[in-house]
C-alpha cells in the first residue's frame, strides 16, 4: 500500500486516490507517419520494465486530477521522489542502461 507524495497537493496521499499510468518520459514521435511498423510498434508497446529504479506516471484521479511523475524502486517499492510534468528526475540509475 503505497503512500504517494503528490507534488501538487503537497502531502502524502493514500494509493487508493491514484492510478498508475505507466512508464514516464516516453515522447510521442513528432512524425508518426515517418516511422516504419517496427519503430512504431516499439513506441506503442515496448517498455523498460526495470527491476529497480523506474520513472513512472501517476494520476491523482481522486484528488487534484493532475498527472505527475515518480521515481520508484520496483523491488522495494520505495518512492524516491515525485516531480511535476516538465521536470527531470533527480534520482536515476545512471549507467545501468535502464
Amino acid at each position, binding site marked *: 500500500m503505497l503512500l504517494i507524495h503528490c507534488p501538487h497537493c503537497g502531502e502524502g496521499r493514500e494509493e487508493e486516490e491514484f492510478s*498508475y499510468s505507466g512508464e514516464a518520459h516516453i515522447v510521442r514521435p513528432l512524425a508518426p507517419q515517418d516511422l516504419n511498423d517496427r519503430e512504431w*510498434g516499439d513506441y*506503442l508497446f515496448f517498455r523498460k520494465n526495470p*527491476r529497480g529504479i523506474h520513472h513512472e506516471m501517476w494520476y491523482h484521479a481522486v484528488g487534484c486530477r493532475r498527472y505527475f511523475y515518480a521515481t*520508484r524502486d520496483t*523491488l522495494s517499492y520505495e518512492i524516491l521522489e515525485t516531480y511535476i510534468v516538465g521536470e527531470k528526475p533527480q534520482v536515476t540509475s545512471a549507467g545501468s542502461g535502464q
Partner: protein
Amino acid sequence: MKRYSGFSLFKNALSYHENWQKIWRSPKPQTDYDVIVVGGGGHGLATAYYLAKVHGITNVAVIEKGYLGGGNTARNTTIIRSNYLWDEAAQLYDLSLKLWEGLSQELNYNVMFSQRGVLNLGHNLQDMRDIERRVNANRLNGIDGEVVTPERIKQIAPLINISRECRYPILGASWQPRGGTARHDAVAWGYARGADALGVDLIQETEVTGIRRKNGAVAGVETTQGFIGADKVACVTAGNSGVVAAMAGLRLPVESRPLQALVSEPVKPCLDTVVMSNAVHGYISQSNKGDLVIGAGVDGYNGYGQRGSFHVIEHTLQAICELFPAFSRVRMNRQWGGVVDTCPDACPIISKTSVDGLYFNCGWGTGGFKATPGSGYVFADTVANDHPHPLAAAFTIDRFNTGALIDEHGAAGVAH
C-alpha cells in the same frame, strides 16, 4: 529412474523410507551445453523435459537462480482451463489441457490434476454476450463448454448466492467440466525428475547475470558460477523476463506486475469446483487440504516485490463474500504475491528473437500455470527446430510491430 507406485511405497515403508532414490541429481555445471534453459520454473522444466523426451536433445541445463519451481509455479492459484476466446489461444491452452490429462502417468508423478470444472460467471448483459461468444467459439474448436443458468450454477456450487437482489447478480456462466486444478509444486518436481532422468542437468542457486553473444548469435550465459557455453539459450523467466532480455540488449512488450492470492484456513469440503468472476474480480476453489484458494486481480503498478497492495485483497474478499455470503466468517490464513509478466494483449510470447539462438517464452500474465505442459511442449519444439511450432506461430514478438495481436484482454476480459 526408479518408478513410483503403491508397491514402491510399501516396499520403502518396510525399510523405514531409508532407501528412496534422490528425486534428482545436483550436478555441477558442464562447460557447455546444446541448450541452456534459463529459469527452473514449471515452464522451463517442461521445456527441458520435452527437449529431451520428444527431440532427443539431452545435453541440456536448466539454470535456476533460486530453487526449482520457486517462482510463479509456487505462487499461483492452480487453476487449469482452456476456454479461451481466440482460436490461437484456445488451441494452445487446449494442447496444454490434453497434456495435463495424462501428465501424472507421463511423469510417473502424481500432479493431482483434478477435473472438477471451472465456472466463469457473468454479471451483466455484456458479460453474457461475451460468454456466449467464447463458449460458441470453444465448442466449434472442439473444446468442451456450455453456457449455464444460475440454477445450474447453484447445483454445481451450492453455497453460491444466485439471488437477483445482489448488486451484481449472477446471470449465468460458462462451464468447462474438463477444467480444474492441479498440485502446483508437483508439476515442477515431476517435470524436474523426468528431465533429470533423461540427462538434463538441473542447476539450482545459480543466477544468470549476462547473455554472451558472438557474431550476432548467442554463445552462452554468464552465471554466478562462471560462464557456461551454449548453442541455444531459451529464457523462461516469468516475472523477470524484462531483466533477462535487457542482458541481451532487448526490450520486450512486457510489464511486470504483482498478482496476489490468499488461502483460508482449512475447512471441511464445501466447494467442489472452480468459480471465477471477472466482473467482480475474484476467483476461488478449494484444495484437497481444505483451504479456500482465492485469487485477486493484478495490481495497478509495476513491481518485482512479490507483494501488492492490501486494497486489492480487500476488493477480492468483498467479491468472494458477495458470491459466497457464508464464507464471511472463514478466515484468511496466508496471503502472498507473485510477479507476472503481462503483454498488452494478455497473450504470451513464444518466440525466436533478433539474436540467433536466443529464444523467449514469457508474458503469460495471469495464465501461466495452466499452460505449463503446452508451453513447454511448443517452446521445446521451437527451440529444437529453430522454427515456431505451428501452435506458437501466432505468439511471436513480431506481432507487436505488425499489429496482429491476439487480444484476449480487450476481447473478452477473461484473463487468469
